[in-house]
């Protein structure tokens, strides 16, 4: 920590000196004649300072992570605020006045949209809508309750004399203050909860609340500002009704603006096939425009951006190329991370500027107490009402939810925006807000982890759902819809089902690319992680290809390994042989079907894509990410290589077929066979090696049923003499958590369709880890 301070101090001193050096620089110009080197400070001043700030913030982040022990205990936001305090102190001392401040305009136009845009775009839509009732309840009713109660109680406190006389505020001012201090802040919630990893439902409720309460906050703020302008005496009852109407307009209007932009974005990305490079630009522009347009009409900008992101995400992700997806994801997260850092540092800096605030102990302490108490009480009542909850919320969850009500930079920016002429007590309010924000972010941020542990709150499971679970999740949707229909209720599932029909028949047709639309049904199965993607030679892999999935699917089991199950129709009719362990040496191979399936499989190269993401994290990539990326890179390489071989292979097929019939044992000597096998090998595998290591896993001669142990995580592809069945073998490295034992599901030959183990001539391995 000492080193960080020193470094930062040095940076700031440079800035400061640079400012003062400006004057010295100008004197040089008077000398006349030609200057070889000049000091162009005034020219580059603004961007230079911005860049230096960004650099300071980012370097600070690096330095924080040097101490592992520290980072697990202290959340990053705390450290950033402390750093801001230190920096602010330095600047103050150096300059005797505060140079840098968190400008509300900067905050609302640039910093906040990046964070909210990132959150909205990557919001898990299904989770969000499943809990939408609870979220709305808290966001609207909860915030209103908090705002009014806090305002009224502060006023009573003033009347009772707890708050000092110097604070010249009356009821309207206090109500205004209550409105802006009671809103839960999305920036703070994200920053703190990201490190806590509570279960998804709790997180989405608190986070959704922080986003959706923007409408309430905006309306209350504006309404009270106008009331304060006019003066408390002149407020008429009509104005109250206007307030309510304005709330509806602001919230619904904001949502509609967001949805309109979402549709536009989806529609545009449908046609961006030829301009892939600027695809991410469309995403950023339109999401940002959604925000600005809502601001233009003084609607709720956060709502607009959130719904634009949620709405567009599904269609955009299907339409744009893989590289664009990556670009969008990384850029958004980088920008959001930077914005968050800057916000917290500036919060720290602004706190140090004494000229801007005035202290009143009574006000500060009352506010702190009230916001806590009213939030807890409000949460409790709302959960008891049992109105809209799809799930029951336990006491533990309530505690976490009330504890998670963090205030942050939004409240601060709003209070700084107040007009000091109209609101005489502004300085006191500013000081109180600073204390509240610091308290919630730092104290609550520090203590929430131990609290969560102590209360044994269920944490988020980062394990992927098993196939059975996913099948049943899907089954539930249909079962519950059916039961609802039978019972005559038009409940949540009924409407969701209707929406999905509408989406399938109209919306997807409009917004998805034709090729994607035809395969959209695969998209709709969230848990088939494979998509068929055939890329044009040398081109980008598009979302989904034009090829069908006739016979194969790469299926992800719960064991974090990919099993390529290849099926084809056998002559005697029944279908599947899934032998995961052993080569089945069935004589009488049907060579043609083999090669044909080879051909089909080779054309459909699989590219698993993450569909199910419920855990939102900006800082840490999920565990399998690195390997997945390596594999994807590898796949792309392989694809391009494949394409060059494709054309030559066709010709050789015919020749080899005749060869193979004659001589089954030499089948695989032909190099084209070797090459044919590669894509399947590579794709289903998680590689930890470099991508050049592609040709290691070649086949074995199939007349022997030997298995070569390759100690890497590869899927071996064996060609068997059996007619159409392909068998796979997964070595132990691929399977991280669980090894698939030697279960042989086969019903090809048996009429009784039970799963049986088949003892073959080969060696059977029972691998356990």
């Amino acid at each position, binding site marked *: 920590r000492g080193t960080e301070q020193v470094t930062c101090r040095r940076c700031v001193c440079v800035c400061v000196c640079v400012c003062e050096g400006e004057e010295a620089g100008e004197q040089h110009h008077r000398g006349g004649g030609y200057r070889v080197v000049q000091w162009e400070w005034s020219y580059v001043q603004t961007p230079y300072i911005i860049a230096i700030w960004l650099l300071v913030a980012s370097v600070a982040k690096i330095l924080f992570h040097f101490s592992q022990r520290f980072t697990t205990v202290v959340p990053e936001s705390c450290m950033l605020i402390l750093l801001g305090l230190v920096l602010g102190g330095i600047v103050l001392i150096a300059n005797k006045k505060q140079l840098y401040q968190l400008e509300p305009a900067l905050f609302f136009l640039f910093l906040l949209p990046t964070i909210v845009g990132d959150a909205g775009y990557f919001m898990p839509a299904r989770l969000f809508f499943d809990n939408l009732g609870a979220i709305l309840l808290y966001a609207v009713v909860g915030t209103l309750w908090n705002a009014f109660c806090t305002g009224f109680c502060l006023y009573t406190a003033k009347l009772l004399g707890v708050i000092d006389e110097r604070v010249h505020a009356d009821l309207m001012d206090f109500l205004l203050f209550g409105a802006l201090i009671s809103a839960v802040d999305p920036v703070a919630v994200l920053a703190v909860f990201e490190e806590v990893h509570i279960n998804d439902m709790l997180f989405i409720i608190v986070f959704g609340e922080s986003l959706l309460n923007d409408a309430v906050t905006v309306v209350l703020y504006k309404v009270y500002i106008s009331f304060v302008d006019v003066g408390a005496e002149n407020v008429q009852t009509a104005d109250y009704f206007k307030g309510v109407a304005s709330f509806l307009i602001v919230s619904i209007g904001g949502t509609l603006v967001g949805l309109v932009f979402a549709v536009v974005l989806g529609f545009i990305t449908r046609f961006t096939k030829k301009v892939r490079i600027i695809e991410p630009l469309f995403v950023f522009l339109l999401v940002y425009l959604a925000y600005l347009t809502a601001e233009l009409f003084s609607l709720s900008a956060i709502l607009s951006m959130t719904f634009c992101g949620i709405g567009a995400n599904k269609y955009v992700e299907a339409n744009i190329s893989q590289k664009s997806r990556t670009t969008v994801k990384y850029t958004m997260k980088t920008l959001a991370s930077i914005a968050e850092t800057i916000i917290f540092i500036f919060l720290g800096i602004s706190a140090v500027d004494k000229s801007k605030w005035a202290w009143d102990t009574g006000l500060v302490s009352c506010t702190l107490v009230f916001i806590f108490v009213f939030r807890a009480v409000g949460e409790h009542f709302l959960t*008891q009402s049992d109105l809209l909850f799809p*799930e*029951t919320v336990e006491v533990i969850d309530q505690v976490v939810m009330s504890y998670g009500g963090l205030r942050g930079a939004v409240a601060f920016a709003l209070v700084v925006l107040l007009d000091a002429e109209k609101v005489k007590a502004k300085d006191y309010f500013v000081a109180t807000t600073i204390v509240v924000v610091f308290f919630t972010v730092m104290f609550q941020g520090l203590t929430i982890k131990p609290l969560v542990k102590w209360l044994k709150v269920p944490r988020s499971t980062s394990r992927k759902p*098993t196939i*059975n*679970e996913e*099948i*049943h*999740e*899907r*089954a*539930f949707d*249909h*079962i*519950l819809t*059916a039961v609802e*229909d*039978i019972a*005559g*209720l*038009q*409940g949540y*599932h009924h409407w969701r089902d209707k929406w999905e*029909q509408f989406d399938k028949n109209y919306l997807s047709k409009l917004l998805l690319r034709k090729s994607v639309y035809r395969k959209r*049904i*695969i998209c*709709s*199965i969230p848990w*088939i992680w494979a998509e068929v993607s055939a890329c044009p030679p040398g081109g980008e892999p598009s979302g989904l290809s034009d090829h069908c*999935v006739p*016979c*194969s*699917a790469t*299926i992800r*089991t719960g*064991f974090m390994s990919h*099993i390529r*199950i290849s*099926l*084809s*129709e056998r002559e005697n009719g029944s*279908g*599947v042989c*899934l032998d*995961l362990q052993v080569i089945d040496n069935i004589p009488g191979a049907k060579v043609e079907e083999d090669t044909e399936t080879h051909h089909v499989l080779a054309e459909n190269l699989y590219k698993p894509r993450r569909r199910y993401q419920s855990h939102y994290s900006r800082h840490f990539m999920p565990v399998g990410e690195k390997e997945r990326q390596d594999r994807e890179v590898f796949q792309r390489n392989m694809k391009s290589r494949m394409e060059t071989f494709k054309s030559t292979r066709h010709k050789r097929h015919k020749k080899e077929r005749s060869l193979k019939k004659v001589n089954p044992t030499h089948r695989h000597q032909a190099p084209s066979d070797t090459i044919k096998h590669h894509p399947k090998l590579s794709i289903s595998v998680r590689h930890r090696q470099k991508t050049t290591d592609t040709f290691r896993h070649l086949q074995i001669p199939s007349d022997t049923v030997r298995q070569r142990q390759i100690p890497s995580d590869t899927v071996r592809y064996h060609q068997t003499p059996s007619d159409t069945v392909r068998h796979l073998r997964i070595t132990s490295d691929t399977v991280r958590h*669980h*090894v*698939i*034992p*030697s*279960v042989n*599901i086969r*019903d090809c030959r048996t009429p009784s*369709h*039970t799963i*049986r*183990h088949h*003892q073959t001539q080969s060696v*059977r391995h*029972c691998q356990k880890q």
Partner: protein
Amino acid sequence: TATMGASQTRSEHKHQDLVDRTGFSLEQIKNLHKRFQQLSGNEETISKEHLDSIPALANNPIKKQIIEAFFDKRNQHQNEVGSFQEISFEQFLMVMSHFRPPTLKTTEEEREALRKEKLRFLFNMHDTDNDGTITLEEYRKVVEELLSKSGAIGLEAAKAIADAAMLEVASTNVPHMAPDDFYEGITFEHFEQILKGLEMESRMHIRFLDVDTSTMRCGKSTS
């Protein structure tokens, strides 16, 4: 008028009895009774055709299974097997009670029992031949109905998924299978085990309303 009053109190008695047996509230039972009468055309029992003719169910891929489930004797908690031809309101309610949401007041044991009940319902739905295990063929059928009926993926892919799922069950439950063993099928215990991670009691329920929504409903309405 007197007879009407008498019959009303009689049905209320019956309803009260049902409250204790099924766990619904009186209001919910009344609403469901109205719906039952709507479906049955004011008869005492409904048959499969009545349920079949609900228009909203037409697109549901597992329509058949759900309707079967209503007529399945095993779901009546009376240890019988087979299926009815027609069911009465009471039996209708028994099946519906599998979908009750847990309230704040349910204890841990009740929650566990609820969970087992719902799992049992699912199991019965899959196990169509009543033999106590879900075989590969039955499971395949389930997956097929869920996926390929709606045109989502081809039959073969559905089969593959079912096989992989079966494999998963086998490997989780019987990790030490010897080479010569069969895996006959998924038993109820295995089924429980494999769905341990799912929060059945919170996922699998619908909200039965206390308010009568018959006037707000559109769709099948007889009078």
